[in-house]
């Protein structure tokens, strides 16, 4: 018997690895999509500290 022989267990392991890979891939897509949705809904925010840029606030709102 060669070490290379494909056993049913290898198929099961492959299925498990592919499954975990797909789940992780889907998670990345979801986090990316959420980030885009949040940033777009966030309005006028600065990238580095998420605080409102005073120069972007309309004059009547800042008074």
């Amino acid at each position, binding site marked *: 018997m060669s070490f290379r022989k494909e056993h049913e267990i290898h198929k*099961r392991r492959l*299925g*498990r690895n*592919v*499954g975990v890979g797909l789940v992780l891939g889907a998670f990345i897509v*979801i986090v990316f*999509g959420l980030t*885009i*949705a*949040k940033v777009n809904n966030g309005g006028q925010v600065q990238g580095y500290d998420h605080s409102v840029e005073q120069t972007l606030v309309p004059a009547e709102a800042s008074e």
Partner: protein
Amino acid sequence: MSDVTINTKVQEGEASFGDYFALLKPRVMSLVVFTALVGLLVAPVGVHPMVAFSSILFIAVGGGASGALNMWWDADIDRKMKRTKTRPIPSGKVEESEALGLGLTLSAFAVVMLGLAANWFAAGLLAFTIFFYVVVYSMWLKRLTPQNIVIGGAAGAFPPMIGWAVATGGVSVESVLMFMITFMWTPPHFWALALFTKSDYGDAGVPMLTVTHGRKSTRKHILVYTFILAAVCLAAGVTSIGGPFYMTVAVVMNVLFIRGAFQIWHRDDEAAEADNYMAERKFFKLSLLFLFVHFGALMGEAALAPFGLGGW
């Protein structure tokens, strides 16, 4: 025994991806997804589709995680019962410790991700749901009281409240009534099933109403809960999530359901055995439709709203 035989033995028990997925109770998860989605869609506040999709997904993962923890805790009784013998742990595919690890990890993951995606109130509600199902129901009351079905039903009733909280960030009369619909629906649904199936809960040491209080009392319980359920369903109809369409559906469904409950209450086991539990079976089938139709009608009201047709 050689090393080879040891390896073979270990490999035989190796689980597939599907076995781990089965730990999350996919069928229960589908109910969670549907009711949570309705809760989210009927809320008066709009949610970004991506946030809505992710939130429902994390609620489903949280529900699945509680299913895995339930299977970890109940592995001993699952081994004794015919219905649950083929689950991943009793069938030897997944280790108990693996189910515990997966359940705890996914619980924390789902709660944190829901908090980040939606809000921390909804995340807290999801955490409470998991705690309620695993600790209050599975660990504490399931093996202690014949009202276990009622308590377990509460855990399954939280998803529409979480969906509502995702959109609004809080609780309201409407979300509590959506909770009450599933909560009051679970006992008659399950007890009807218990009347016509031969369960082995007794052998597993789980007290069931049909055994502890008798079948006659179970029939009475079904009728009483069906009346309370009707009141709850109609009450939901007069709130902001209801409307003429939902109300019509609710009245028709509840009249049919009460009629079925009356038939069950009115007869004894002798009559039931004569027609192979026809009334009980019909009532159980109707109960499956009942919940789906009610939440579907609530969604229908929300869908009609943009055309000026939904709501009162």
